């Protein structure tokens, strides 16, 4: 047994979007909660490398896959949760959720399109399901109407199903949820991969051994993505229905912000690949103005390899062009990225990570690996329900009076500010006048704030501020960001990494290699900061700063769609 790192009521294992959601939920209550994450930052795996669909499960639930999951008994009670809980509520919740958390979300709408008659049939099935959910939508086979909504869509389009949904940069969610949880007293331990979990009968709590020390916890939430089965096994839980971890490599290509306006909505092709239920490639307008096209699908057993392949990217391009023929790939491509979507189960069903239930082996161990249902706010509701079933009281008696749901946003703060606001920011802190990222206009002041909020790597700064995602992809900002990280963390720049681990960028100092016996330095643990002044503000202050947007127009879709009927459908 090593040193005691922490002692908590509830320990969340895994700092992806699920874990951070759990942490924030729990931080509302007067419990001692903490997060352990094996990497140096939140959201480093699948949570940052996905389509960024919020509320996407509405359409997903409406597909054949959901039906097959239901038929197969699901993997838990969560199998039908989306259908019961999320349809209407989360749509309005989603707006509030993103506003409070300062997540750069916008109502892009979500349009499923059919480019052939088989896809049109599937679209009609989806529309039927939505009708059953009392979910507003627009369905049309009028090509003129579709072109009105999306002028650049392929001439082959035969039908479109349009939903009120939104999109955001996927990595915003774990970061925002984590910061808000920390604002409300939750703790976190990074670079602390879990090596063993034992139930201590005498103390009636878990002993969780990590790479950086031990933690005692009364409850555990296992939100470790495809690492979840390994952890569950530690308490003897084989996670019913989970056979072996496999995954699918999903690749994306990003076009620069000159592509803003090529699509008005998220546009996704209805399922095909010859495999029913697998949705097609999606063209996504991103909040920063970029366009992402993805994803490809390559089943893989090597779930750790996260790279891009020529074939995968070419697939995204050719499929993207099927939907939007005029995509300016060679003129505007700036980046490619990939993620591995974990799949559990032996039926080859895509994305069947559906567990949200307390373990049968120990009721205080809750498995929470709900995957691929978009970044739905509604998961929190079901998590709360499951925790109560596990014996953790989450009611009035234990709610914090001073819970502050508002997290001041940081991303692209300077770039989005009005001229008057920019002037004020520079007057307050001249570092707002030091541009670090010239493509996205991100300043030194924002980089420093990102570090004060926990970034210890270049990617950590990038994801919090939005820098490095423009046309030059970091060529201008990287040297400056590395220097600021070194300065603010008090470490030599030769220890600053791109994304943790051994990913140092500047390995040596000038002329060092000319000396005898140069050693490659080992990476060492860097304690993340969390001393932002902004995050210490009270709820009252932050509420004043937060503009109240009108909620009543939240049904409106971009692209000029008229208001949708609440219970009916509107067909042309």
């Amino acid at each position, binding site marked *: 047994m090593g040193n005691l790192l922490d002692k908590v009521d509830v320990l969340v294992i895994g700092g992806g979007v699920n874990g951070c959601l759990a942490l924030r939920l729990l931080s509302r209550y007067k419990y001692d909660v903490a997060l352990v994450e094996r990497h140096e930052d939140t959201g480093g795996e699948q949570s940052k490398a996905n389509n960024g669909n919020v509320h996407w499960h509405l359409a997903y639930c409406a597909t054949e896959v959901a039906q097959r999951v239901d038929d197969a008994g699901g993997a838990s009670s969560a199998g039908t949760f989306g259908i019961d809980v999320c349809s209407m509520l989360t749509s309005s919740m989603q707006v509030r959720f993103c506003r409070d958390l300062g997540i750069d979300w916008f109502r892009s709408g979500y349009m499923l399109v059919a480019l052939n008659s088989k896809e049109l049939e599937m679209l009609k099935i989806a529309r039927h399901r939505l009708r059953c959910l009392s979910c507003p939508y627009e369905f049309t086979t009028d090509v003129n109407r579709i072109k009105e909504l999306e002028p650049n869509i392929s001439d082959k389009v035969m039908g479109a199903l349009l939903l009120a949904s939104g999109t955001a940069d996927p990595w915003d969610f774990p970061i925002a949820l984590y910061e808000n949880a920390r604002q409300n007293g939750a703790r976190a331990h990074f670079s602390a991969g879990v090596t063993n979990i034992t139930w201590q009968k005498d103390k009636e709590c878990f002993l969780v051994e990590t790479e950086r020390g031990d933690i005692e916890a009364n409850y555990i939430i296992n939100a470790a993505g495809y690492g979840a089965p390994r952890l569950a096994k530690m308490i003897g839980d084989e996670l019913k229905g989970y056979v072996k971890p496999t995954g699918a490599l999903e690749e994306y290509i990003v076009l620069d912000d000159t592509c803003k306006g090529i699509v008005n909505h998220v546009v996704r092709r209805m399922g095909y690949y010859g495999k029913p239920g697998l949705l097609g490639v999606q063209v996504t307008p991103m909040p920063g103005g970029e366009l992402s096209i993805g994803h490809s699908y390559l089943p893989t057993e090597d779930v750790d390899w996260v*790279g891009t392949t020529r074939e995968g990217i070419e697939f995204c391009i050719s499929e993207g062009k099927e939907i939007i023929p005029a995509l300016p790939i060679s003129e505007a491509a700036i980046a490619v990225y990939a993620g591995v979507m974990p799949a559990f189960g032996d039926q080859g069903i895509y994305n069947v990570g559906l567990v949200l239930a307390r373990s049968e082996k120990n009721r205080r161990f809750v498995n929470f690996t709900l995957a691929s249902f978009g970044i739905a706010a509604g998961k929190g509701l079901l998590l709360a329900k499951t925790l109560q079933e596990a014996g953790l009281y989450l009611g009035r008696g234990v709610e914090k009076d001073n819970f502050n749901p508002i997290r001041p946003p940081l991303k692209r703060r300077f770039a989005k500010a009005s001229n008057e606001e920019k002037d004020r920011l520079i007057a307050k802190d001249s570092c707002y006048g030091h541009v670090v990222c010239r493509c996205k206009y991100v300043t030194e002041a924002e980089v420093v704030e990102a570090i004060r909020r926990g970034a210890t790597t270049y990617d950590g700064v990038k994801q919090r501020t939005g820098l490095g995602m423009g046309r030059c992809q970091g060529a201008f900002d990287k040297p400056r960001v590395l220097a600021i990280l070194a300065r603010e963390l008090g470490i030599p720049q030769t220890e600053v990494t791109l994304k943790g681990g051994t990913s140092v960028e500047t390995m040596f100092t000038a002329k060092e290699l000319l000396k005898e016996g140069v050693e490659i330095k080992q990476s060492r643990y860097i304690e993340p900061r969390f001393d932002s002044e902004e995050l210490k503000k009270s709820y009252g202050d932050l509420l004043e700063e937060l503009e109240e947007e009108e909620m009543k127009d939240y049904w409106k879709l971009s692209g000029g769609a008229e208001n949708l009927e609440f219970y009916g459908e509107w067909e042309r």
Partner: protein
Amino acid sequence: MKYETPDLLVLGSGPAGLAAAVRAKEAGAKEVVVIERAEEPGGILPQCIHHGFGTTYFKKVLTGPEYIDSFIKKAGDVEILTHSMALELSSDKTVTVASAKEGLIQFKPKAVMLAMGCRERPRGAITGATGFLGGVRVSGVLTAGTTQRMVNIEGYVPGKHFLIVGSGDIGMIMARRFVLEGAEVLGVLDILPFIGGLLRNEIQCLRDFNIPVRLSHTVLNIHGNKAGRGRCEGATIVGVDKEMKPIPGTEERVDCDTVILSVGLIPENELSRMAGVELNPLTGGPIVDECGQTNIPGIFACGNVVHIHDIADDVSKTSEDAAEYAARYIAGELTPSERIPIKRGENVRYVVPNYFSKDRPVTILLRVSWAFNDAVIRVGNIFEKSYPYIRPSEQVKITLSPEALKKLKDKELVVSCEGKETVSR
């Protein structure tokens, strides 16, 4: 918020912007302000510590910092605002600038000189026939210019075993720099069958330092830690055919910890686009006439923002020419260009400027589209010159006087090249 109305606002303080600012002042513009987003003036030159600057302009052999210092010293009462970045440019020449010292400033100058230079093509924008650079996204994959700053200004060497992709000038110069820093340069690749930069760099950087060159080769994949949480460990390179497609069976694994990309410079025209300046898809820069004026009266452009030059001296000289015209414009004395088109003909990749008048001299800069022996460059019926060897990386400069221009028979000026391909296409 502050409001200023100088005569000329110059965006960028590199060899284009500073030369233009100084000359505009000399030519009669009263108030000239230069906007620079970095900490110090000079554009890219402060990090170009190699020599080769000033050979034609100053008739001396200078390093980049020495070259630009001469202009900074001449600046006199030209106001250079550092840590100041232009955020918006509108078609009525209003420029909004965020300045660390002054806050937000809105400028309404009489004329604007675009001199923003260029950026490097990143990994994700390599879209040629070989397709995208695949593999993991580890650390140690950097563009050459970024590493130039890291080494020369900040004093860091990215790695120890380098593979350089692209034989452009920056790649060759950094290859030499890495060797001088004690690192190992495993080789320089180029997808084309000839070197992408100047001959003098080929000799002084690669041959003099015994750095291996692999032409008609490119990189396919980057290897390293599976999740990307580590350093580059190697790359797979491959030979390519005439269509620049990978030749199966020629794949080779190179063990390296750093892959340097020197695969092209792209003029930076975000602000130009904002203002509605018409861009030339062949160059990525504004369409300009012989005065350096864009389609918007009073918005001029010079230097690498228009097209990529080979030599800073040429940048400064052509920028000064544009500045003279800008000063005349400010004084209300610039007669509009006749806008007779200059077009690229056979074997020419691009020509700048795009328009000329018969009563003013014009300096034409062009690049050919392939490498030729025994080449002849023709400009309409009015000019012809032979070159024993010519290639895309060696820009050709031709100055034509009004007397010569008046002899043009056609309605447009076509610039073409004829010669024997060194390697067949």
